[in-house]
C-alpha cells in the first residue's frame, strides 16, 4: 500500500506516493532526485546519509520516508546559497577535510547540526559531535580543522553577506 508524503526539501515542497518501507535516504535519492546524500554502511553506523530533519541531524537510512510527512529536510544540496558555498563546505575545501569525498556530505550535515547547538566547540566537542560519522581516507585531523575554521567564519562573519565572504575568500 502506498502513502502520500509531503515534505519540504531545501525549501521546495515535494509530494510523492511512496511505499511504507521506502527509507528516507532512498526517497531523497530516487524520488526527489538529490543524490548528494550518500549511502555508506546501510547499518546506521557511518553517518554518510546524515541530513537535517527539522534542524536535527538524523541518519536518513534509519528513518522511513513516511515518517518525514510534514517535515523540513535539509540535505547537502541545500547548503550553498546563490552559488556561494556554505562556510562549512568552503572550510572542508580550504582545510583539505576530504580525500575521496564520499563521507563529506554526512560530515558537513552533522557538523552543521553541531555548530547550530554549539557555535564555538572545542576540539573534543567537535570529535564527540562527529562520532556518528566515519571517514575511511583521511583520518579526522583535517575534518576537525575544517569544522574549527567554519566555526570561526560563521561566528566572525555574522555581519557579512555571502558575497562579501566570497570576496574575502577570493582575495
Amino acid at each position, binding site marked *: 500500500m502506498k502513502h502520500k508524503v509531503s515534505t519540504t526539501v531545501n525549501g521546495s515542497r515535494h509530494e510523492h506516493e511512496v511505499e511504507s518501507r521506502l527509507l528516507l535516504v532512498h526517497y531523497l535519492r530516487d524520488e526527489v532526485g538529490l543524490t548528494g546524500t550518500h549511502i555508506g554502511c546501510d547499518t546506521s553506523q557511518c553517518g554518510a546519509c546524515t541530513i537535517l530533519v527539522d534542524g536535527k541531524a538524523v541518519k536518513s537510512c534509519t528513518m*522511513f520516508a513516511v515518517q518525514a510527512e510534514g517535515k523540513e529536510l535539509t540535505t547537502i544540496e541545500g547548503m550553498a546559497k546563490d552559488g556561494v558555498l556554505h562556510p562549512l563546505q568552503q572550510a572542508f575545501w580550504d582545510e583539505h577535510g576530504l580525500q575521496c569525498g564520499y563521507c563529506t556530505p554526512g560530515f558537513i550535515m552533522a557538523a552543521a547540526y553541531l555548530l547550530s547547538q554549539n557555535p564555538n566547540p572545542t576540539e573534543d566537542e567537535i570529535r564527540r559531535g562527529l*562520532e556518528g560519522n566515519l571517514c575511511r581516507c583521511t583520518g579526522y585531523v583535517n575534518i576537525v580543522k575544517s569544522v574549527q575554521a567554519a566555526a570561526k567564519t560563521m561566528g566572525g562573519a555574522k555581519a557579512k553577506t555571502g558575497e562579501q565572504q566570497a570576496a574575502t575568500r577570493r582575495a
Partner: protein
Amino acid sequence: MIPAAFEYARASSVEEASKLLKTFGEDAKVLAGGHSLIPLMRLRLAQPKALVDINGIKDLDYIKEDGSKLRFGALTRHVTIENSAVVKQKLPILAEVASEIGDNQVRNMGTIGGVAAHADAAGDYPTIALMLDAEIVTNQRTIAAKDFFKDLFTTPLAADEIVTELVFPVANGPHKYIKFRRRLFDWAIVGAAAQKMNGGWRIGLTNVGTTPVRATAVEEALHKGAKPEEAAQHASDGLNPSGDLRASPEYKKHLARVLTKRAIEQAG
C-alpha cells in the same frame, strides 16, 4: 538493504495506537525512534506485518518532576534526557547514560520508551531502571522494572499494550556508569552502574545475561563494610553470560568485576 513490506499507520493518541495494534494483530510493532527496529528490519531479522507510528503523539514527550520521582514520557528522546537540567540535578546518572548512547544522530531519534520496550540486554536504561526500582507504565498497567525485563527482547507487554511512561526515583548521590566498548558509539560489551541511594549502594550490570542484572551480592557486601575491590568480586556471582564475537563468557565476567569496582570507586 530494503526491509520487507509492511502496513503503516500513524497514531495521534495512545488510544488510537492501541486500537491500531489490536486491528493489525500479533505481528504489528510500535515505531518510536526506530533506531533498533529499523536496522533489524533492514537486515530482515524483524519483519513486522505492520508498524504503528507513535511519533505524532506529542503528549508522550515530557520530563516531569513528581515529588520524589521523575516521570519520563515514553517518546522522550535521548538528547532531551542528556540535556535536561532537571535530570542532571535529580537523576544525573540517567543524563550521563543518555549522553553515551550511540551518537548525536541516534540520540536525536532514540526514545527511552523504545529502549525499554525493545528490552535488548545491551540497553543501558534498563540496567538503571532495574537497579533503581523504576516502574514502566503502559496504557493498561504499571509494571516494576524487575518484572518487566523477562528475557532477551522479551517483556510482559501485550500485543496492544504500549509503554507510555518510565518512572524513576530521584537519586542524586554519588553515581557512575561505565560502558566498556571498542568504539565510542558501540553498545556496551559489558556495562556497570553504581548509585548511592538512601545510605546504601545500588549496583547494576549491562549485557552480562539475557536481561539487565542487579548485583545484589555486591550491594550486600558493601553494606557489610567490604571495600569496593572486595565487594566487586561478587559482581560475577551467578552470572552466565553468553559469548559473542567481542567477548567470551569468562571475559565478560572479568569485566563485570573490574567495571563494578571502578564504578564504585569513581562514583561522584
